């Protein structure tokens, strides 16, 4: 095998640069083992964090070729096969403030995590003195969300956070809220939902980067969906987010298909859609993506149902309960 070649994005507090490290290939090395090799044999100024070595403490997440991985849990040989090249680019997690090299700042993320009102507020029949009762099934219902190791991988490639992190939270924060909202011991699940509703719950872009990046197989996107469901049922039906969800559902119930021409006015309201989206619509006309006639047909007359529409409605109905 060829030598390992790591291109590492460096930052010393003032300057940024990309540094090349080449060292002999040894089979079975993890990314973390390579980083330690570099620090202890080539360059002691390289900075990264690591603690447990066994994928449970969350300290060593970094990006390899732009994708977050746990350094201790990822074999370099696998990565070389996956990317088809001997050179790997290592950079700090995305959507995080870099302190130096591969070390990122967690202070703000901890602060933001407080919004999930973590910690259980147990139901009245339970006490600190006696503890709680819970069925094995109810415990299982939250056990996946409890696998979160706060490594930050889900946030690294989150497209919504990259676009604007002021009105959205790191995906793991929604997972934290969901594990308490869903817990059968919880006295008031909504105390974990409503602050999320006000903190970007409806802004998730459904890009699923969080799902593919989580090293523990958690789906923060599903937790966002769960919290939305709870919020909607609790009466949070106003605003573009809930209206968008409702418009989806209406389309599915009516025809089994999404009608994007109708989706926009349903979500944003007729006036807003007509004024705000007009330039966009005109651009689509001018580029030949849509004709005015076709738009009008879709908006007024396209009510053809998909095959087995009844079956779909039964699924939706069952899901409503």
């Amino acid at each position, binding site marked *: 095998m060829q030598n390992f070649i790591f291109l590492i994005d460096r930052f*010393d*507090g003032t300057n940024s640069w990309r540094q090349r490290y080449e060292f002999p290939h040894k*089979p*079975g090395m*993890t990314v973390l083992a390579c980083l330690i090799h570099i*620090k*202890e044999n080539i360059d*002691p*100024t390289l*900075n*990264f*964090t*690591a*603690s*447990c*070595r*066994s994928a*449970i*403490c*969350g*300290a060593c997440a970094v990006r390899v070729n732009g994708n977050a991985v746990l350094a*201790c*849990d990822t*074999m370099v040989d696998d990565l070389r096969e996956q990317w088809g090249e001997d050179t790997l680019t290592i950079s700090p997690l995305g959507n995080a403030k870099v*302190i*130096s*090299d591969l*070390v990122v700042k*967690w*202070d703000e993320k*901890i602060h933001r995590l*407080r919004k999930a*009102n*973590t*910690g*259980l507020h*147990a139901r009245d029949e*339970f*006490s*600190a*003195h006696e*503890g*709680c*009762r*819970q*069925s*094995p099934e*109810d*415990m299982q219902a939250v*056990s996946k969300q*409890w*696998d*979160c*190791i*706060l490594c930050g991988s889900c946030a690294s490639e989150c497209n919504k956070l990259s676009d604007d992190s002021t009105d959205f939270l790191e995906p793991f924060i929604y997972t*934290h809220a969901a*594990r*308490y909202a869903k*817990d059968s*011991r919880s006295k008031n699940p909504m105390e974990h939902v409503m602050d999320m509703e006000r903190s970007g719950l409806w802004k998730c872009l459904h890009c699923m980067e969080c799902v593919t990046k989580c090293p523990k197989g958690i789906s923060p996107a599903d937790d966002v969906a769960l919290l939305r469901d709870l919020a909607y049922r609790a009466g949070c039906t106003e605003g573009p987010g809930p209206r968008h969800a409702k418009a989806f559902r209406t389309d599915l119930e009516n025809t089994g298909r999404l009608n994007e021409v109708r989706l926009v006015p349903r979500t944003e309201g007729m006036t807003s859609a007509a004024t705000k989206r007009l330039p966009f619509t005109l651009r689509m006309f001018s580029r030949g993506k849509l004709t005015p006639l076709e738009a009008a047909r879709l908006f007024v007359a396209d009510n053809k149902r998909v095959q087995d529409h009844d079956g779909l409605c039964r699924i939706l109905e069952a899901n409503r309960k």
Partner: protein
Amino acid sequence: MKSYDIVIVGSGGAGLRAAVGALQENPDLDIMVVTKTMPTRSATCMAEGGINGVLDFPGQEDTLEAHSFDTVKGSDYLGDQEAIDFFVEKASEAVRETDFWGTPYSRCDDGRVACRLMGGHKHARTNYSADKTGHILLHSNFDYALKSGVQFRINSHLLDVAVEDGVCCGVVVRDTNTGEITPIRAKAVVLATGGYTRMFWARTSTPYIATGDGVAAALRAGVAFKDPEMVQFHPTGVANGGVLITEAARGEGGYLVNNKGQRFMADYAPDRMELAPRDITARAIETEIIEGRGYGEGLGAHVLLDLRHLGRERILERLPQIRHVAQLFENLDLVEQPVPIRPTAHYSMGGIDVIDHEHMKTAIPGLFAAGECSCVSIHGANRLGGNSLADAMVTGKQAGIGAASYVPDAGLKGDAPLKKLASKWRDHFREATSRKGGPTVPELREKLAATLWEGMGIFRTEEKLQAALNSVIDLQKEYETAVVGNENPICNTAYSHFLEVDTIFTLARCALVAAVARKESRGAHTRKDFTQRDDENFLKHSLVTINGDYHLDYRPVSINRYQPQERKY
């Protein structure tokens, strides 16, 4: 200068529990948790088995007394019995309390917290959450600390505890982000910095960060290091680095095999074979290696754990985690190949000398300790499975209560000692980072690990211990010329590691001083030249202090209920 009522150092199970405990005792207190890393990166998250605590459900035979006795016996009678009685009572409360806060424990069909039987216990009292109890407990404590409004100052490396007129007045920390060395005034300080098994660097199951920073700072402040020679070895760590292959591998029927292809446990425990207790298995493996029936040499020597006969299906179903560890560290699939293993340093029974178990006080007023860095002693010469998480929860809470009840009558002390220490450390950073051309930190660290494994590992003798002590003294001298290799104050992790290794050198020397003098075999301390326990001369705690030189003193064990008997299972 920043001032707080209480500064808690460390954010593992004990530190987080201490913070919440202090706020529950007095919500008006101004509390800061300072911690070397982001919270939740600590050793607590690696505990798998469970947390002990007798829950008095109807029809259950277990009692607090039974848990207490098992712990005393497990400690080989070096545990303090009054403290253990208190501990088991509080451990039972801790399980219910954390359940009430949201810890998702595994459940029985009737909704009770599920428990399992662990080695050395007469009854099933190890409450668990699947095979990741430590992770779950740590995160539920972190979540609850957030809920309680606990504030964190992360990336703060503890340098020293400051004392004025014999009273604790704060800490000096280094902000690893900026490199700034900052004195922090506090009326009370709780140290919860974890264990010190990292002194065996290449052969330990604990995380990189568990370097005993708090124990060393307490020593420099004048507090004794109690029972430093008591380090627990787990029989099966991967040969490459020492991460645990859990007991499940042997429980499911794995074989331990030497280089002659023999299942050598037949010579040590013919009835129980691979299912013999941890200490017997660890000694058997080490004996095979010493007598030339292992593979490899030096710290990399090992025997094999063979699971192939279990078959692919059973391995995939029952032992996926272990297979994953073998893949990561040994680059092999244990479905097809046996995995190289050797005992690994696992837990620090010794620690900062605590003189009041109810409030976890040290001899310095205002300085408290909790968790693995502290030593009451509850675990004596050997800790039982499931008692470590219970220790973190119980001693953490008690230290929090202790500090909170101490604060109202304590004023903020002067800042002169803090300023002096901070200035000393600023000079140290400049001096150490500007060195050129000495030995490197990793080089000396590996030498220390090899020296300790050889001299203070599973089998100890006068001659080997003394030789190791001499080597460590030499290495310490060499360390004074070691190079850091990075002068940038911003996020200088090389300097952090330089300090950590300095710390484990100090603690290793303390452990050797105590181990040489303890001329008996008790619990984890196995002397080949003194194979019996000697209650007449050594039913006492070792206390090592540093004042220019290393001093060894002793304190009797508190015995109020169970007279020592032979420890047989």
